[in-house]
């Protein structure tokens, strides 16, 4: 069942068309990520759900109720802001209690919920601290507890981990994901970090210039991107060129490749997108010929930069424990795993 439906939402800032006829249905209890490059309209979309912006056209429906024009304080959604926006004049407990107090809950109920929330985000020992006396990660936890305390129908998170360093970010990704599963809440999570989106989400909506290009599970988005933009934005990918020779057959640098050619007619030029993990160096002589340009050690593997005979450059990852070592100038042959190439016209 859809808990939230955005129907044909348009948003203009002056002449700038920021969100374009956007449609999105969010399932109950899912972790949905809106992923896209900076400036593509993610925050604007989230702010329309929270009520800080009103769409110029279209509607937003929460649990069957049209909330398009409802002010933010009357909506049953809560936001975790990127800069946390904790109230500096209140301590941790008071921050968490604020939303409950606005609903005029009695003191015993508020106290009980605050204690519960503090325990949930492991901040019980910091209840009396002011936000300025907390680290970034701790402020983050308080911001989450404060938003969750209101029991929102949907929790909105706008790049909540953006300000944390890499290690803490990885840890918080796990914490957020397990929190979402434990609470069984609907999360709408905004990020420009594709790796974060892949690891955390049930579904990802890939957004580009105000439009959702593709909505699907991380596997669908990764393995069968529906547009060139999605293919290029998610994960590492190599762009090769070739020609369609028959239904689901192409030729690339003189080698046959089997892949879904969709409805591209025979004889047409095509773009071939290939993930690094689907290209191997073969010891036989019938592969795509190429030359090693560069090798870079990267811990678990070595990154190889290879120039093909048609001039295209390919990057692949070679396990460090493979028997052969390659160096600059080596001539090699590449084999492509069948049915893995993604083809665009």
């Amino acid at each position: 069942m859809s808990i939230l439906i955005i129907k044909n939402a348009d948003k203009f800032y002056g002449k700038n068309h920021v969100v374009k006829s956007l449609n999105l249905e969010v399932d109950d209890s899912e972790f949905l990520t809106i992923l896209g490059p900076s400036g593509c309209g993610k925050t604007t979309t989230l702010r329309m759900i929270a009520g800080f912006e009103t769409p110029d056209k279209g509607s937003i429906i929460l649990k069957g109720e049209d909330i398009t024009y409802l002010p933010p304080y009357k909506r049953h959604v809560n936001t975790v802001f990127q800069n946390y926006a904790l109230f500096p004049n209140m301590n941790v407990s008071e921050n968490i209690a604020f939303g409950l107090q606005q609903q005029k809950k009695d003191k015993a109920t508020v106290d009980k919920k605050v204690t519960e929330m503090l325990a949930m985000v492991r901040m019980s020992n910091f209840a009396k601290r002011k936000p300025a006396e907390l680290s970034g990660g701790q402020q983050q936890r308080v911001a989450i507890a404060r938003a969750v305390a209101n029991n929102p129908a949907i929790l909105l998170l706008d790049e909540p981990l953006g300000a944390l360093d890499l290690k803490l970010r990885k840890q918080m990704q796990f914490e957020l994901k397990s929190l979402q599963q434990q609470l069984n809440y609907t999360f709408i999570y905004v990020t420009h970090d594709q790796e974060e989106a892949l690891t955390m989400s049930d579904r990802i909506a890939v957004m580009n210039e105000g439009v959702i290009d593709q909505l699907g599970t991380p596997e669908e988005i990764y393995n069968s991107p529906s547009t060139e933009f999605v293919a290029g934005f998610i994960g590492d990918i190599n762009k090769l060129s070739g020609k369609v020779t028959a239904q689901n057959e192409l030729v690339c640098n003189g080698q046959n490749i089997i892949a879904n050619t969709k409805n591209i007619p025979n004889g047409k030029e095509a773009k071939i997108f290939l993930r690094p993990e689907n290209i191997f160096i073969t010891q036989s002589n019938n592969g795509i010929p190429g030359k090693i340009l560069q090798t870079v050690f990267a811990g678990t593997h070595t990154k190889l930069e290879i120039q093909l005979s048609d001039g295209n450059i390919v990057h692949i990852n070679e396990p460090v424990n493979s028997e052969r070592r390659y160096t600059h100038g080596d001539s090699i042959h590449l084999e492509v795993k069948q049915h893995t190439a993604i083809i665009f016209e």
Partner: protein
Amino acid sequence: MNTTSLKNFLVSFSGIAVLLFLYFPLVVIVLFSFNADTVNSFPIQHFSLKWYSVLFRDDELLQSIGTSISIALISTAVALLIGIPAAYAMHKYDFKGKKLIDKIVLMPITLPGIVTGVAMLSFFPFVGVKISLTAVTFGHITFLCAIVVTQMLARFKRLDPYLEQAAYDLGATPSATFFKVILPNIKTAIIGCVLLCLVLSMDEIPVTFFLIAGNNTLPLEIYAMMRRGITPEVNAISTLIFIFSTTAILLSMRLNKEK
């Protein structure tokens, strides 16, 4: 002496000269306020607090202090009640004429006091306010409003805009947001603003001069005393005003700087 050190010397010399020029009269007044003799002459023969005790027995002076304090308190309170919501509205909403207001809000302060004074002198009777301490209070409210609006607007601009949104997001109505989130976070700026307003009101002469009838305010009372000659009593009251004003202004500057 090479040119750099000559330049340095000239710069620090002129700096010190300016400071001396500004503060020497103050130092003299403070010193003479402790002079036991009636005649101001160096070197001071006997130090005493005599003039301070004379001061506290001068009924007219004490009354003028009372008048000034009441006017300062009332006009500051009213200016805050008008100025803070006005500044909040100017910060929050975009409306026609906002730019214009932004520019002219400081007019009552930047215009020479004499212009404001004359303008009010002819305007107030026109709307039925007689020349009186009430008129003086209205006059002070006018220019203090300008101070409050500019000071508070600057504070609102430094406030994290997401605080307000976070409050709405958690279900707080606009008024609850203002009283529970906005106001507590601009508290120090308000206190600073109050101190500044009190000092400016206590110290005001031009506008007051045109509108006053009946009892004198403190600055006008001092002015009246001076016509009888610069008595050591004037030195004493000036010293007290100097200490009070400097403390209040320094405190106000500190509070306004705070995040």
